[in-house]
């Protein structure tokens, strides 16, 4: 967070967006592992009284009492009944039965969202600068719902229930379960009620890619935000005994003398273990005699924390670690604050290194960690999540979590535009997002290094400054969402569960998910235009734009990478003479000719512009 605000155009000390008192009236409720109130990120210097609308509380418990709250951290509650009902009483010797965060994740998410300005923040000297949340004047209310054993849905619903009663303005959740129908999804259900109250709900997308269909929290009344990367790198190079060099990333900043400066014996973890999953460097799986004094290559692939893998190597006497991405992570590199000299490498480099490792009878390697640098390619330094972390780290390097950016923008937007609905705020964030860098290069898919698509980046990277003044928005009401549920063929009972009301879908009305006034377009043509999602080779979308800027005339433009589908917009010009004026337009997608058997996804874009504003929407086309 010493870099993220600048990356997002927010500036470090001089705000692009004027700090208004209304921003300090914004209350962000964070459902997570609780909060560590002593963090400087929760310093309340300069903040006025707690907003009069606030009805929350600061609950007491293990190592936490009401005096831990202040004008920054204005609320803290915990919810453990569901957890205890399943896993038994909380062992207070292991975790605090209170809002206190024993884990770090909740403190991390709360402070990246709305942490106060903290000067001279660094991680072992790395990324020294001023750390701050994206909405540094917003207030924070922590709702602890995640414990050592997980985050149980009955506790999550209870926390959402309470947060609504407490009068939060934004609900932020970096958690989720698998994909399910919305009427079975506790987060989606709770979020629906919050949305009705005008609360903006921001949820993490899960970051479970690059596998397909791995998105979480996709209900359209939720603002679903994926984590991206920014332009700060932490290079750490690998040199092999055969003279080849490879780049990786690392935040290792321990004893510099500990880093092997000369070629050191190198071993693959899977060959230094008797365990079937020895390659993953799980606790107690490495054979010390085969590891001692060597650099060890471990496979990432999850299961245990990345930093813990290094700790396992260190405990076995290893001199260093190279963490190899597998297909599960592709080329996505995450710089970690390792406990021993270590670096992470992408799958392609990993495969080459392994090839050397397996073929050379006496493989050797060195690791060279360098200081951070600004480069186009990004990395994602993050909260370590390692329970063996004992270094008393207070500030992790900037988690490039767009969620935080959204909260910054939403905090400012709510302050600047308190009349905007959650859908309008989401629209502003989506339609002003960018999909190419200033040098014209498209955003990259970190898994492949290739240009990303809307299936990877959604609407794009958030631009909080532009989002404050989007020109036009795609607004939505509760009725629009109810019609969407009808389009999903939900039963009356299912709709009642989700929306807390009896709502009867009109049997005479033809509902379509395409009618939801959402700032994006997706169509699936059945093969040969017969089966599949649409049986027609012509698909129409109707959208309504609301003017939230000055009077103006907007012209439509369409781009498409596919010759198989013709895209048109009618009318091509929309004129707005006053604020809140609404105009309707139609997008028509017409399949042209026959579809090759191997047709793949294709993408396009619709943009409306008056010369000052660009209101963009992605188009995704698929064939089944």
């Amino acid at each position, binding site marked *: 967070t010493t870099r993220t605000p600048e990356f997002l155009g927010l500036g470090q000390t001089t705000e692009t967006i004027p700090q208004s008192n209304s921003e300090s009236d914004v209350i962000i409720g964070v459902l*997570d*592992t609780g909060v560590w109130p002593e963090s400087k990120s929760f310093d309340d210097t300069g903040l006025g009284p707690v907003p009069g609308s606030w009805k929350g509380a600061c609950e007491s418990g293990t190592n936490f009492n009401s005096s831990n709250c202040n004008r920054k951290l204005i609320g803290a509650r915990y919810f453990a*009944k*569901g957890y205890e*009902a*399943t896993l038994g009483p909380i062992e207070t010797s292991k975790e605090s039965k209170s809002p206190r965060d024993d884990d770090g*994740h909740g403190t991390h998410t709360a402070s990246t969202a709305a942490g106060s300005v903290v000067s001279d923040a660094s991680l072992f000297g790395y990324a020294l600068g001023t750390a701050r949340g994206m909405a540094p004047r917003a207030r924070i209310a922590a709702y602890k719902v*995640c414990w050592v*054993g*997980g*985050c*149980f*849905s*009955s506790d*999550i*619903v*209870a926390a*959402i*229930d*309470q947060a*609504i*009663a407490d009068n939060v303005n934004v609900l932020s959740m*970096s*958690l*989720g*379960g698998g994909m399910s129908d919305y*009427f*079975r999804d*506790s*987060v989606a*259900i*709770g979020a629906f*009620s*919050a949305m009705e*109250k005008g609360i903006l709900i921001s949820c*993490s*997308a*899960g*970051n479970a890619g690059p596998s397909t269909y791995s998105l*979480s929290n996709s209900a359209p009344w939720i603002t679903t935000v994926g984590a991206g990367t920014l332009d700060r790198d932490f290079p750490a190079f690998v040199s092999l005994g055969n003279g080849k060099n490879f780049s990786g990333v690392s935040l290792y900043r321990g004893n510099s003398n500990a880093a092997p400066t000369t070629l050191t014996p190198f071993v693959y973890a899977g060959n230094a273990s008797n365990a079937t999953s020895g390659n993953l460097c799980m606790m107690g799986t490495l054979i010390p005699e085969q590891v001692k004094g060597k650099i060890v290559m471990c496979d990432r692939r999850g299961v245990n924390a990345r930093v813990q893998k290094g700790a396992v190597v260190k405990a076995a006497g290893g001199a260093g670690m190279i963490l190899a991405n597998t297909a599960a992570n592709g080329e996505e590199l995450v710089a970690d604050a390792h406990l021993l000299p270590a670096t992470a490498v992408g799958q392609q480099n990993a495969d080459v290194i392994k090839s050397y490792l397996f073929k050379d009878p006496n493989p050797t390697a060195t690791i060279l960690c360098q200081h951070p640098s600004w480069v186009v390619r990004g990395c994602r330094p993050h909260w370590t999540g390692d329970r063996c972390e004992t270094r008393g780290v207070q500030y992790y390097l900037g988690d490039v979590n767009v969620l935080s950016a959204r909260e910054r923008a939403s905090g400012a937007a709510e302050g600047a535009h308190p009349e905007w609905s959650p859908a309008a705020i989401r629209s502003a964030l989506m339609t002003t997002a960018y999909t190419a860098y200033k040098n014209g290069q498209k955003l990259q898919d970190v898994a492949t290094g290739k240009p990303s698509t809307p299936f990877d980046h959604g609407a794009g990277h958030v631009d909080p400054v532009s989002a404050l003044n989007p020109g036009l928005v795609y607004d939505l009401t509760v009725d629009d969402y109810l019609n969407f549920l009808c389009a999903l063929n939900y039963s009356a*009972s*299912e709709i*009642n*569960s989700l929306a*807390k*009301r*009896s709502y009867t879908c009109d049997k005479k009305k033809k509902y379509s998910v395409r009618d939801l006034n959402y700032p994006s377009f997706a169509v699936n043509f059945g093969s040969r235009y017969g089966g599949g999602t649409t049986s027609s080779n012509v698909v129409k979308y109707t959208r309504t734009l609301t003017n939230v800027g000055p009077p103006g005339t907007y012209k439509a433009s369409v781009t498409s990478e596919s010759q198989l589908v013709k895209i048109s917009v009618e009318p091509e010009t929309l004129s707005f003479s006053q604020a809140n004026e609404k105009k309707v337009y139609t997008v028509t997608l017409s399949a042209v000719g026959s579809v090759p058997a191997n047709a793949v996804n294709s993408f396009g874009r619709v943009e409306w512009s008056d010369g000052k504003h660009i209101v963009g929407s992605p188009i995704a086309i698929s064939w089944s």
Partner: protein
Amino acid sequence: AAAVDKNDVASTTYIVHMAKSEMPTSFDHHTHWYDSSLKTVSDSAEMMYIYSNAIHGFSTKLTPEQAESLQSQPGVLSVLPELNNELH
């Protein structure tokens, strides 16, 4: 006591969604109605949370059989088993 223990071991937390608009007029408050509905399937089960804002309903521990029975009670929209979510 043995029966209770056996049930406890076999029970799971469920979130029960209620159609609040269908509450019989004989009840003064929805919590009484929720409790009454719950008691039709279990004398010992207690409401863990009562939800008013996020959903209409409550959470409780039930055996699968009790959950199935509760699902068929008037005004009960759904009885969903507890899910464990993960941090992202």
